[in-house]
């Protein structure tokens, strides 16, 4: 009789293979490459943004009248104290908030409505409508301002004739700011529509289709599916509005109201410009610049956080 046992089949043994090691020179070269690619961009940023920023910060602690031959005197925090004690700054900030609030309908609400409506139009007419809405963006701000000045003219302007009013739109404290907001809004609304449009195009149509099959009415599809999925785009537009509204209005203020009447349209950027280039008080303007810079950084950080919390991302 033959005897035997069962034996477990031996499986291939796994061995640890040592990791490939790069020589010091190779490692160095690998480490440097990304920085080499970034270098041109960083250089430009340093020359055009960070260096002026540093100079501004430096200037904000000095008194200087912008005349190259006149001396620069160190004054410590005097510029900041002057800024914070006179009421000008607070008023400019408030006007900036007004502009931002006034711009939001033009950059968020109207574009959403327009984009939703234009979406229902099919074929060539759609392109025509989009071109029409976008056209104002192509008009140079100063040229637009000239036309609006003429339209808003108190004696012969078309606006007064159409509305049957008798207002001096740009030279009355109560209407000057409103006029500026509407003109700026007219100017940027086309761009905002385009951004919303792009956002909508990026939403997979299956979601809307699924919602319709699930029984949602067109209104429910918009409220429950389209708008939530559009929220990153809307947050982006909101952020742009908060950070850039005051800049968008600048050329109009400069050509139409020069910050008046009695400072009613002076926002932070216009104040900054006035301090520096009207009063030739470089130190004070620099201090204001530094404050606004810090302020906008804080606002931007808060808004980005908020947007991340509130928006939904498609994956």
């Amino acid at each position, binding site marked *: 009789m033959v005897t035997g046992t069962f034996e477990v089949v031996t499986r291939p043994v796994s061995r640890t293979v040592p990791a490939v090691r790069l020589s010091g020179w190779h490692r160095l070269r690998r480490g440097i490459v990304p920085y080499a690619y970034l270098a041109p961009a960083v250089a430009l940023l340093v020359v055009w943004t960070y260096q002026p920023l540093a100079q501004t910060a430096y200037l904000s602690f000095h008194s200087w009248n912008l005349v190259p031959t006149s001396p620069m005197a160190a004054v410590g925090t005097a510029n900041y104290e002057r800024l914070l004690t006179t009421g000008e700054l607070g008023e400019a900030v408030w006007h900036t908030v007004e502009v931002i609030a006034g711009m939001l309908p033009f950059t968020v609400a109207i574009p959403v409505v327009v984009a939703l409506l234009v979406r229902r139009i099919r074929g060539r007419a759609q392109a025509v409508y989009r071109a029409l809405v976008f056209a104002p963006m192509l008009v140079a701000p100063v040229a637009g301002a000239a036309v609006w000045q003429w339209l808003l003219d108190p004696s012969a302007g078309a606006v007064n004739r159409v509305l049957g009013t008798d207002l001096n739109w740009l030279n009355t404290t109560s209407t000057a700011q409103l006029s500026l907001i509407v003109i700026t809004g007219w100017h940027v609304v086309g761009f905002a529509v385009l951004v919303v449009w792009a956002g909508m195009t990026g939403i997979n149509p299956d979601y809307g289709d*699924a919602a319709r099959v699930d029984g949602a009415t067109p209104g429910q599809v918009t409220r*429950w599916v389209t708008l939530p999925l559009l929220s990153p785009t809307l947050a982006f537009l909101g952020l742009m509005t908060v950070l850039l509204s005051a800049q968008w209005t600048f050329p109009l203020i400069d050509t139409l109201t020069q910050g008046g009447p009695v400072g009613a349209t002076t926002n932070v950027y216009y104040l900054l410009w006035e301090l520096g280039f009207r009063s030739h008080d470089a130190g004070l303007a620099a201090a204001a610049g530094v404050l606004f810079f810090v302020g906008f950084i804080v606002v931007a950080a808060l808004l980005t956080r908020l947007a991340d919390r509130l928006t939904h991302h498609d994956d």
Partner: protein
Amino acid sequence: MSRVRLQGLTRRFGSVTAVDDVWLDVADGELLVLLGPSGCGKSTLLRMIAGLLPPTAGRVLLDDTDVTTVPPQRRDVAMVFQSYALYPHLSVAGNIGFPLRARRRSRADIRRKVTEVAGALDLSALLDRKPRELSGGQRQRVALGRALVRDPGAFLMDEPLSNLDARLRATTRAEIAELHRALGATIVYVTHDQVEAMTMATRVAVLDQGRVEQAGTPAEVYDEPASVFVATFLGAPAMNIVPATVVATDGGLTVRATDLDLPLGIDATTPGRDVLLGVRPEHLTLTGEPGIRAVVTAVENLGGDEVAHCRAGTHTLAVRGPRPLRLAAGDRVGLTARPEHLHLFDPGTGGRLVWRTADIATPERNFA
């Protein structure tokens, strides 16, 4: 549950005819599988049933109501999308409850129903997750849950298993089949996977270039394919197709090609004609007596079975049989097939040929 009828449904996109004059009647409680290669118009057909795409011509009927012009939200059908289309901003519970929310049901009602469906689909632990935090199989079940929550007249499913791995696909396939049995649901199920079609369907409609090539039970479409397209689309490896001629001999009708001579088992005479001979790889058997004289060119191992690729005359034939076939490349073999396993097709139209005796009194005789 409803009956779904499609009458002459057609959809053109410019010069492309995606769906071409489709007539189908899906009985209450039936699971109809739409089977066809990519681009044959399956999704287009399904979207027309759902109301997401207006047909160019034809009508859609749910029970006895013509719903051709009714918008999707007022048709009583639920759809599972190929992409699942789970709302990314809503939780699993929000996704499943969405159809009820659209129907303005009370919150308590929705919560109760969602819990019930989630329990049945083993999703209870995931109700608060967002779709992006789920695996493919879990997403698939949520998509199914969103359809199940509402008791629709019919379910439309567009390749719901195509994103799953082989194992998950097998289990989910069984789950859907079980669901169909348990609910007695009317289901129109789109797939290009013939295994899904054969195992799940009560009836299969094979589509090619927008047209229904054949509709019948899985056994019918497999055993009596109506055309060369259906014959070669179902079965793996595909049915062997060989151009041949039918001739009358002393022993009855015979089908002939180079190195091939197989009796059809019909004792009659007929003028000779060209045909396409079809025979499935598993129906070819190795014998000594040569019906087909062939040379083996390669052998493939499928695990349980083996496939031998052979050359007979100018044609290649696949032979499938239990492993081991004991064949090697270069072997000369004799092959034969039983008459009932031979399919004849018209070379011009690709349509199936059936034998009909000139005597009117005798009923037609089908090959198969």
